């Protein structure tokens, strides 16, 4: 297929990809750095009466209204960030226990609390296990604007195919930057279906009277999640074969690390990269394979170790390599900083 290059911001890309995936219902509340996704959708909805748009009174309501849309069979979705992400985890767990295709883009911003408004990688724990959750959701982490275009489409398909809440976990660097994007790759749309059908009675519950009843409900959810995970899990290993140093990084930092690896390889450093694309489910086997033969593991992230803890837990029995950390909570990380760190090792 010929390339179709367009100059877009990441926020434009998310709206465009959602429309291509068949999204037709949006409820949200403004919050930086993701507000332009909501206002971008509002502009589309103003042109097209088939698109629903509701600006709610807060993020909890945005999530609950999204669930209302899903019940009627709409490809409903929402967008949030930071402290709004905290509130929206409440409806997210309702979608989790009801196995609903709740799609949400999250633009991470600095924390704890209001923090800074553009960038961080500190919402990983929240995205993976926020609310009183068992983590029965999918979390995609695009590393650049091109991936954002494809992953946003894919997120809707994953959510509807497996009936599972799905998060696209980005940040303000990813969505506020203007870049050329190839928008030629359009994925086939997954079908949506209403939960409530005229006359066929359905009673959807999230509250159970007995432990055993909830236990058996959860066992079913866990078993569905395990089998879907095999199809969903994704990662990228770059120059990992024969590497003595393996970098672990994700999202925008994962892209910086890839640039660093390319440069370092040219200079003769035996370095490679493991980058998860789904942060949940996590590609344990891919990670274990990537560190075979590695003497050192460098974990790079813009948080105080949220990602590092996943990496170390995953690799506990699989490597004797030493860990080196480049943690910069709430601060951006450049390829040059990563190159420098590798050279010090």
């Amino acid at each position, binding site marked *: 297929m010929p390339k179709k290059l367009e100059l877009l911001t990441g926020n434009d890309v998310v709206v465009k990809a959602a429309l291509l995936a068949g999204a037709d219902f949006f409820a949200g509340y403004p919050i930086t750095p993701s507000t332009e996704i909501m206002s971008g959708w509002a502009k589309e909805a103003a042109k097209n009466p088939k698109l629903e748009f509701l600006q*709610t009174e807060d993020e909890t309501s945005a999530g*609950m*209204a999204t669930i*209302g849309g899903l019940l*009627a069979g709409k490809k409903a979705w929402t967008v949030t960030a930071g402290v709004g992400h905290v509130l929206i985890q*409440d409806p997210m767990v309702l979608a989790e226990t009801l196995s609903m295709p709740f799609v949400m883009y999250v633009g991470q911003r600095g924390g704890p609390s209001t923090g800074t408004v553009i960038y961080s990688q500190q919402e990983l724990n929240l995205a993976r296990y926020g609310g009183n959750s068992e983590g029965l959701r999918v979390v995609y982490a695009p590393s650049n604007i091109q991936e954002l275009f494809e992953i946003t489409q894919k997120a809707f398909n994953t959510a509807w195919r497996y009936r599972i809440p799905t998060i696209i976990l980005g940040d303000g660097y990813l969505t506020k930057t203007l870049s050329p994007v190839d928008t030629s790759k359009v994925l086939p749309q997954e079908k949506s279906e209403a939960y409530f059908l005229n006359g066929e*009675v359905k009673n959807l519950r999230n*509250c159970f009277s007995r432990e055993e009843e909830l236990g058996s409900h959860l066992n079913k959810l866990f078993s569905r999640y395990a089998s879907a995970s095999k199809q969903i899990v994704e990662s990228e290993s770059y120059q990992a074969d024969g590497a003595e140093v393996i970098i672990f990084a994700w999202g925008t930092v994962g892209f910086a690390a890839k640039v660093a690896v390319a440069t370092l390889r040219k200079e003769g450093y035996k370095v490679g990269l493991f980058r998860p694309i789904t942060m949940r489910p996590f590609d344990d086997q891919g990670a274990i394979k990537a560190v075979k033969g590695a003497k050192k593991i460098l974990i790079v992230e813009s948080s105080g170790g949220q990602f590092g803890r996943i990496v170390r837990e995953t690799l506990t029995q699989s490597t004797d390599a030493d860990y080196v950390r480049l943690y910069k909570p709430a601060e951006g990380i450049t390829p040059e900083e990563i190159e420098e760190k590798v050279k010090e090792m």
Partner: protein
Amino acid sequence: MNIDPRYPNCINIKSKPSNFCPGCGYGIISKVIGQVIDELEIAPRTVFTLDIGCNLLAWDYYKLDTIQTHHGRVTPLAVGYKRAKKDSVTIGIAGDGGLYAIGLQSFLHAAHRDDPITIIGVNNTIYAMTGGQLGPTTLLGQATDSSPEGKFTYPKPIFGPELAHEVADDKAYIARASVLNIPQMKQMLRQAIERQAQGHFSFVEILSFCPTNWKTDAKGSIEMIEKMEKTYKTGVISG
């Protein structure tokens, strides 16, 4: 007004006896709602969003689609569903805590946006399912689990329908009923659902019994409602 003693057709007889406490007002209220649904012949189009409170026990009370939400969230979920399914009859049920405390923001904004949904608020002056704590409608001097010596700190309770009326569109239907006047309650519920069909927000607060937490017998429960009616005037507030 026809008050039929029989169960309405839209009630799920298999789920009876219901899980409500003996003497609870929800038995009366749920039955009257069912009668209105039968009379308007809207059962296949009706969806209930239920709060986390005593009304969640109605999850299989009817042969109708229902979804339990989280505490205070019946309104936004109903708003979302109605926007996505415009020919539906979307009804949210919540208690005074769910509607006037944790869910007040959503409730007022739905009224303000004139979302075409019907909210039924059951006011028994306390948080009943959690064991009778102080709520936004607890009466002056009333002893509760969390105000054991009586409530005296802030004398004015929250008047939900009057508050909603302040922000609602003029075409909204807002009323207060009582379990002691079933014909009036039924008339109000019917008008509320009809107003939704006309494309407007509607809300009925119903003063209701909670003998378990009030620790009252039948006579005491009726006396308590009579006392509530002195503070919370029944009638149409916005018609």
